């Protein structure tokens, strides 16, 4: 544990140093720099994910079910997520229980929120069978069928053993009473599947717990809990205060509770974007452990800033802005060179000279 904590903070420290060096190189007066520091720091603090959850951001800059792009640019978010997930998942006590708790959480979500939502959508479509087919009803049915088709497609992959032959008929052309009936049957079978999953996961968890308590006594177990687990971190990474446990958006169902037990979406090929506190990150077909993935991202940032520093790119960009405004005010290039020479590069030595003279 110690090494991981140290390494994450060390990587953040190096990255911060790089950013600082870049700023120091690009601006020529100390005043500018210490006014700039809050401008750089405050977005990192606010968008790091610790001050408020991302769903409180305006929809136009936030993404549903994933970390908003603007927050992906903040190194604080990567470091924070890495440490939170690592501490929750991999501490000495929790690492024995994490896998089974994950199965339990997944099965519970499917039973309590996911399948009832799908059944509700199915009910809504069936209600329109007796009504006249207006355009608005067509559009609504279309979106509902898209939702059912997307989600059932994913479940056919994940819930192995529960079959559904009418999957190809989940569109407005082929959908009729028979398909509706079959879909309902499938959802009932899916419910049974997840009930069984939940029961077995729950029993195994209880059994493991009983094993500890019988072997070492309850006091020892409580001591271990106090030593290795953190209640507040558990509350944050499981998002227990979230009111909307499930969201339907753009033809997909999005799980809001227990993000630390939810695997990221693997439908995109390259995209590694996931929700906050995802236990694994998906990239190019492989799952990576969140902690090390985030650390690698921090070092990629560091490399990027190193390149910016080495080639003085930020400095050149800012000087470039200077020439553009000069260009528009129609000053000739000789005058421009003279003005450039007269601007003192570093203000401090001049101040020191003044002090020396006074002495």
């Amino acid at each position: 544990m110690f090494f991981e904590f140290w390494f994450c903070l060390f990587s953040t420290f190096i990255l911060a140093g790089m950013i600082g060096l870049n700023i120091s190189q690009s601006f020529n007066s100390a005043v500018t720099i210490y006014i700039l520091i809050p401008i750089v720091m405050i977005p990192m603090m606010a968008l790091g994910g610790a001050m408020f959850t991302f769903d409180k951001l305006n929809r136009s800059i936030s993404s549903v079910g994933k970390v908003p792009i603007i927050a992906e640019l903040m190194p604080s978010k990567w470091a924070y997520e890495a440490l939170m997930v690592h501490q929750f998942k991999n501490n000495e006590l929790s690492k024995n229980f994490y896998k089974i708790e994950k199965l339990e959480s997944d099965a519970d979500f499917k039973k309590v929120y996911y399948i009832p939502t799908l059944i509700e959508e199915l009910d809504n479509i069936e209600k329109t069978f007796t009504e006249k087919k207006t355009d608005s009803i067509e559009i609504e049915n279309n979106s509902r069928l898209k939702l059912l088709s997307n989600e059932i497609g994913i479940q056919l992959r994940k819930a192995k053993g529960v079959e559904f032959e009418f999957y190809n008929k989940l569109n407005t052309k082929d959908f009729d009473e028979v398909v509706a009936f079959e879909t309902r049957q499938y959802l009932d079978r899916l419910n049974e599947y997840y009930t069984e999953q939940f029961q077995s996961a729950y029993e195994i968890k209880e059994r493991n717990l009983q094993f500890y308590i019988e072997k070492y006594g309850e006091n020892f177990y409580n001591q271990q809990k106090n030593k290795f687990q953190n209640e507040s971190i558990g509350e944050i990474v499981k998002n227990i205060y979230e009111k909307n446990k499930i969201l339907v958006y753009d033809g997909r169902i999005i799980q809001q509770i227990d993000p630390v037990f939810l695997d990221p979406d693997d439908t995109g090929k390259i995209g590694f974007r996931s929700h906050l506190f995802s236990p694994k990150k998906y990239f190019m077909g492989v799952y990576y452990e969140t902690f090390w993935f985030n650390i690698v991202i921090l070092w990629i940032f560091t490399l990027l800033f190193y390149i910016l520093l080495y080639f003085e790119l930020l400095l050149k960009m800012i000087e470039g802005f200077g020439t553009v405004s000069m260009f528009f005010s129609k000053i000739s290039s000789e005058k421009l060179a003279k003005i450039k020479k007269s601007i003192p590069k570093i203000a401090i030595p001049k101040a020191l000279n003044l002090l020396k003279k006074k002495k």
Partner: protein
Amino acid sequence: MKLTANSVLFKVIYVLFSVLILSACSGGGEEDSTLEIPDSVKNAPTQKMKQVGQAVIDDLVQNVSSPIEMAALIKKAGVPFSKDYLSDPDLVDKYNSTFDKALNLGVYGADLGYLNMYNKTSLIINHITTIKKLTEALKIGQFFDFSTLKRLASNNENLDSLMYISTSSFNKMDRYLRESNRSNASTLMVAGVWIEGLFLATQVADKVKTKEINERIAEQKISLNDLIIVLKVYNNEPGFGELIGYFEEIKSAFDPIKIAVEMGEPEMIENDKGELIIKQNDKQTVTIPEGQMEKIIEVTARVRNLVIKK
């Protein structure tokens, strides 16, 4: 050798010193291989538990005196509110197994009924947070949502609607637990509610001797018998044997109490609202021998403190 900033000795000492400091910063991270769970435990086949029928649980809930009724009785007797009777919400960290969690969920539920009756909103918040924590751990959090609690709070004066809301929520929860083969949890919850209700009543009876409260306590003899029968179904599950033992102790304290019911003729009378209702003219005579109440009070307090792990 002089210890200047450039000398080799300085550099060596510097490096050694920093290594010393960094290694001292290492936390107590012992590789505790004793925390591993052997595969034999992880992979053992799961067994199906016997399930108690729905009607039995419904019957049990009807018979076990609702904490709300008990609290209303206590309040009517003019007994002032006392925080000492209640189970401390901070003890929740001691409840690790499902057995402890379900049992104490019942205990906190009974406390909530008591608090609600006396309108102690500030203490209610603490209890509700604890109850929420326990229900999340038992994976029945969806039945304790904000709207149900709000209904409970706003219907403070109306005893009937309070009882209706709480029993219907409990029945929904029990049905859900039955589906996942966990009806032992609902039985434990009822047991928790019962023991806490009895504890509150006995503590009050200790201070204020009224006939109604004593009779109500004596009537618990009947509910206790039902409860023990249902608990015995789960005799083989961990923790149940101990609990049944405790309840048998309380039962033996109740044995000397005699309840005689004389069935009378039913008659039709007019109630306050002007409606005609049937009134059962049963006469109930409760005989409590001298000193028996003290024994009941003492054994209840002992068992309850064992249950909440005080």
